């Protein structure tokens, strides 16, 4: 579940403090004080003591500066050094996610526990049925030896008092591809050869121990140095900030972006491509075609469901299409920043020469707060080329299907779309996808969204929930649709 909580608030607060220091021109001087300011002596602390809290905040600072924290990190290196390196950096490196080592370690390793409800009964079915003899009776209570327990869960079903519970490890539970596990010290480790960068572990961790390596300061430095920096906003931005698209764009211009474009325009191109490709594939007798706009999904295919690869649409992602558009039609020298709710896109952009940086809505939110820009009070500016209803609809699950089916609906002799939607990647839906490749079911157009509900519930949103979705839906209703699939050839207006 995506919700507002203290972990989110802490992340935003930290970002704002760093931004204030940056805009005062004192990031390097002030950054080492931030963990102390946030956890002053004698104040409250979330963990065992303020020192632990400060150590965690320090590591959070490092990740906001765009670096990882790992065994290679030296605790004596001042944050000022990291800040200096961040401000000088021109190259961005992956992997985009990492575990804040100090933050993680609070989850127990053993996943089954006997609660007080145990009556120490005579039958003791838990003990007898444990295949590893991991259960003993200690002082009239069943007790699981974590060294022997293999987490099979048999005991849980045996206890007549339901006294045994399973304690899930939130990040492991959330990861759809088993890419995060605990090491010997009980700390989470991400296995990047499996990771699809969906961000579910980050959303799930109650300690906020998984963070992204931010590119916030890279973007700000580009702007400060006078580069032309173009903001490419994902359609899911509607509802993320109070105000209209034009007002949000005005806010971005105030922040120093030289132009704002809608990624929805790229999504319109993707939709057209997919419609044409679908027609071709059906004519040639393919069993199905799947969407390709969600990078976590395409990464999943690469790493876990290779059998689906031939069915994935060859359409470029909306982000790439828009990045290419900016570099070709707007200014080849411009630096492009994708602004969206997605972590997988940050990973995707590492390998995409058309997209230079990625920012999340959360980071944009922190930036607006730090600069005290009240979006709803600004005069709207035009955002061109305007995205159409089809492309803007990519932000919600079912939107890609609606766009492609809609584009095909007018055409004579167009193939019939039998849609199937995979709304959110989980172990269950991935198992289903594996059968799609084998059994060629359950439809001929399969839309896959890693996040349940679509991009609107991505890991990088600031405003999760129904209110944002409702606003986006209203926005879609008021958006113009592409007519006959090719009507807006002329709208590639240059600014």
């Amino acid at each position, binding site marked *: 579940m995506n*919700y*507002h909580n203290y972990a989110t*608030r802490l992340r*935003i*607060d930290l970002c*704002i403090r760093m931004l*204030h220091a940056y805009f005062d021109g004192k990031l390097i001087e002030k950054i080492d004080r931030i963990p102390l300011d946030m956890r002053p002596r004698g104040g409250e602390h979330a963990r065992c003591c303020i020192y632990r809290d400060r150590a965690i905040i320090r590591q959070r600072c490092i990740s906001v500066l765009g670096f990882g924290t790992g065994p290679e990190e030296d605790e004596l290196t001042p944050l000022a050094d990291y800040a200096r390196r961040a401000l000088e950096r021109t190259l961005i490196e992956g992997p985009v996610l990492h575990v804040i080592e100090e933050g993680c370690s609070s989850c127990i390793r053993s996943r089954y526990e006997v609660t007080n409800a145990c009556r120490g009964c005579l039958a003791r079915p838990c003990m007898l049925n444990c295949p590893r003899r991991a259960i003993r009776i200690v002082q009239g209570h069943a007790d699981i030896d974590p060294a022997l327990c293999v987490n099979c869960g048999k005991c849980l079903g045996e206890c007549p008092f339901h006294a045994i519970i399973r304690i899930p490890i939130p990040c492991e539970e959330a990861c759809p591809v088993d890419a995060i596990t605990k090491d010997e010290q009980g700390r989470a480790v991400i296995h990047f050869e499996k990771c699809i960068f969906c961000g579910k572990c980050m959303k799930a961790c109650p300690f906020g121990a998984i963070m992204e390596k931010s590119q916030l300061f890279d973007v700000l430095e580009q702007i400060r140095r006078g580069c032309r920096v173009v903001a490419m906003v994902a359609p899911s931005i509607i509802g*993320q*900030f*109070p*105000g209209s698209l034009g007002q949000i764009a005005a*806010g971005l211009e105030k922040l120093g972006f030289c132009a704002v474009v809608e990624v929805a325009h790229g999504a319109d191109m993707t939709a057209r491509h997919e419609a044409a490709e679908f027609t071709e594939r059906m004519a040639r007798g393919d069993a199905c075609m799947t969407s390709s706009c969600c990078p976590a999904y395409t990464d999943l295919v690469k790493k876990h469901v290779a059998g689906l690869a031939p069915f994935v649409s060859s359409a470029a992602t909306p982000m790439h299409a828009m990045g290419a558009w900016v570099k070709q039609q707007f200014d080849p020298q411009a630096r492009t920043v994708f602004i969206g709710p997605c972590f997988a896109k940050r990973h995707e952009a590492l390998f995409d020469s058309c997209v230079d940086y990625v920012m999340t809505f959360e980071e944009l*939110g*922190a930036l*607006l*707060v730090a600069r*005290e*820009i*009240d*979006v*709803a*009070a600004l005069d709207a500016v035009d955002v061109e080329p305007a995205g159409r209803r089809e492309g803007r609809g990519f932000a919600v699950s079912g939107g890609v299907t609606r766009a492609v089916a809609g584009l095909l609906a007018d055409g004579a002799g167009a193939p019939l779309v039998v849609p199937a939607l995979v709304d959110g990647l989980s172990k269950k839906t991935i198992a289903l996808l594996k059968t799609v490749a084998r059994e060629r079911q359950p439809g001929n157009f399969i839309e896959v969204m890693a996040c349940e509900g679509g991009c609107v519930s991505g890991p990088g949103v*600031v*405003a*999760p*929930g*129904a*209110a*944002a979705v409702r606003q986006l839906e209203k926005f879609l209703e008021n958006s113009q649709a592409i007519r006959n699939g090719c009507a807006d050839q002329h709208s590639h207006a240059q600014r």
Partner: protein
Amino acid sequence: MKKVTVRVCSGTTCFVMGASNLQMLHEYVPEELRDWVDIQGAHCLELCRDRNYGAAPYITIDDEIVAEADLSLILERIEQRVRG
């Protein structure tokens, strides 16, 4: 019982700091109090200026300012005020 007016700040700062969560506030007001509570949106209340973002989101109940407003705090204050 006394009628109260609640103004939820939807300036950018409050919104980002958590007021986005309060957009559905009306749905959480207990049935028996609904007729007594008038919920309105508001532009930036200007309480966040000069880097005072830390205590956002802000809301007002009549003339009382509630800082660090979350659902449970607001509902508690509403209840107290309405019931007097």
